[in-house]
């Protein structure tokens, strides 16, 4: 019928190998509906969840726990970014706007509503998300008028406007920033932050998964594959792009609030950090853009690595070199990211085994090999 529906067939069967030179190379690898998930996959998911739940209980070292917390934060941010950029193909490099605004929103809300640190401030996190989503509406309306390179540049420009405004207006505290209320937890207890981040992560993954397998998600993918044709076929591209953008901003804003709650203060240069913009994109690419698990894996590996390297080598630039070199290597070896590359490998193995097993098909195997 339409290109979108063809994509849906490929995506929902979960078996369609990506065609040679297919733009939507990642399409076939994610969002397989539950019916196709084998018990093994469910068991693996359950084990991973248990590991995440048990991690701070087993390993009580506060430094390691804070690294785990940062990894969770970036997993949420990268997955949320992927919900817009990965699915629609529009590379947004200004998501720090939502991250930082979430932080400022929480700081201001806590100060004006006299809310204490810890659990009461966590209750305000959805509001931070809503603030970020409200900010995203006008930004999306402006930026989504443009495409490709121009879109990238417009999002960067809007990002810098926010950073400069945060430096220069009164209510953000300017260069000295804002402080968040201290959490009442005993010293170095990161566990509440960790578990709240985990809850937000589960929520984000669930929404990302629902989007991915819904009609909405398919329409987003059709925008990525060929926007003009999608438009011609009656996909309301503008409305959809904006919805995905706002949805993505909501989660980034929420986790931004939590992140700065943990850090304890918000400064313009930490709230609106160009490295954040690029890091979450890097993480999503590392794992596999447009896939469900890719950004999660990318963020988990890269953020833990970055935190570890920063701690080990302080700030003399070594961690930047290691980070950059690792990423370049991954791009050279697996240009589409880790998750699609591994899925392909597994699929090829399985196919080979399937073909090689029956003796009658030995010849076919010879041809394929």
């Amino acid at each position, binding site marked *: 019928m339409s290109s979108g529906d063809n994509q849906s067939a490929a995506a929902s069967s979960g078996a369609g190998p990506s065609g040679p030179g297919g*733009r939507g190379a990642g399409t076939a690898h994610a969002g397989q509906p539950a019916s196709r998930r084998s018990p093994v996959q469910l068991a693996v998911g359950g084990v991973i969840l248990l590991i995440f739940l048990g991690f701070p209980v087993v390993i009580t070292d506060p430094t390691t726990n804070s690294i785990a917390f940062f990894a969770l934060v970036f997993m949420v941010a990268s997955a949320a970014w992927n919900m817009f950029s990965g699915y629609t193909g529009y590379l947004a490099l200004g998501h720090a706007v939502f991250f930082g605004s979430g932080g400022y929103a929480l700081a201001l809300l806590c100060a004006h509503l006299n809310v204490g640190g810890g659990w009461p401030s966590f209750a305000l996190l959805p509001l931070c998300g809503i603030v970020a989503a409200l900010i995203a509406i006008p930004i999306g309306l402006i930026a989504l008028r443009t495409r490709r*390179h121009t879109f*990238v540049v417009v999002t960067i420009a809007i990002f*810098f*406007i926010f950073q400069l405004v945060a430096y*220069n207006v009164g209510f953000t505290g300017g260069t000295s920033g804002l402080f968040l209320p201290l959490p009442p937890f005993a010293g170095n207890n990161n566990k509440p932050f960790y578990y709240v981040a985990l809850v937000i992560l589960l929520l984000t993954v669930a929404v990302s998964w629902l989007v991915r397998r819904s009609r909405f998600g398919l329409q987003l993918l059709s925008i990525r594959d060929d926007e*003009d044709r999608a438009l011609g076929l009656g996909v309301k591209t503008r409305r959809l792009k904006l919805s995905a953008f706002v949805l993505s901003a909501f989660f980034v804003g929420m986790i931004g609030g939590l992140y700065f709650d943990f850090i304890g203060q918000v400064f313009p240069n930490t709230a609106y950090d160009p490295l954040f913009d690029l890091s979450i994109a890097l993480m999503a690419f590392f794992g596999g853009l447009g896939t469900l698990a890719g950004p999660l894996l990318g963020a988990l590996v890269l953020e833990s690595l970055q935190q570890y390297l920063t701690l080990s080598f302080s700030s*003399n630039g070594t961690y*930047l*070199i290691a980070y950059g070199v690792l990423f370049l290597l991954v791009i050279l070896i697996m240009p589409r990211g880790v998750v699609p590359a591994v899925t392909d490998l597994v699929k090829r193995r399985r196919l080979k085994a399937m073909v090689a097993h029956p003796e009658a098909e030995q010849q076919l195997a010879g041809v394929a090999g």
Partner: protein
Amino acid sequence: MSGTAFLEAVIDGILTGGVYALMAAGLTLIFGVMDIINIAQGIMVILGAYLSLWLSVDLGIGLLPGLLITVPLMFCLGVAIEFCFMRRLRDQDRAQMSILVTYAVAIVIEGILTAIVGDNYQQLSASYVNSSVHMFGFYLPDIYLIGFGLAIALLAGLYYMLYRTKFGRAVRASLQNRTAADLIGIDVNRVRTVSVGIGVAVTAVGGMLFGATNSFNPGTGYDLISRLLAIVILGGIGSIAGAMGAAVFILVINDVVAAWWSPTWAPIVYFAALVAVLSFRPQGLFGRVAVRAQ
């Protein structure tokens, strides 16, 4: 705001605009020929500035003669990056992947610079950096005039190369249609490699001039790349004349707002101008086509 102050801001904007135009010309050349956004262009300018610094401080080679060494070095860096990374990107996802690859390159360069020199701010110095000349009733720093002259000369050279030589014709052909250029016997890969080399080589000159007029550290590259991208997009992708016009436009706005209102709000005004222009003219002020056929 008095008339003289306004005029002075405009002149300042035009003079610094020339230097930015040169740096942006390299970016727009790579952008046009390769369809690649070189995020590393900002940090490469800073690298160029550091190269000039080391040559002048450690080896006693002046800033201007030092360019004879730094320009070929940066050219080789550009060729190496194109050969190792950019060439390997597939056509379909080049636009997206290039941003990340060049960003990773930028991180590596930033990391190396930070490891060597730390975060301290530096500035290049030479006899002509601090002197100025009295002209039309204004005191104009010599380095601004030298920079503007050098930038204009190089831009003219670049323009001549692109529009009057056989190589330039090959570049423009590859820019318009890669397949067709391939078919009529142009070695597109070679054209691309050389173009990236030239695009990166201009950062050696840009870096020297930037370093002499601004203080810099390895982190300055981010601020710079945002300005350069703004210039390139505003000028229209692949257009050197457009980059020139946009650079002067943005820097005049910047300097006039800085003089008339406050330096802190100047960048906001030009970023806002950029967003406003692009909302109505996605192809930029001087560009002809909004996006290439998808």
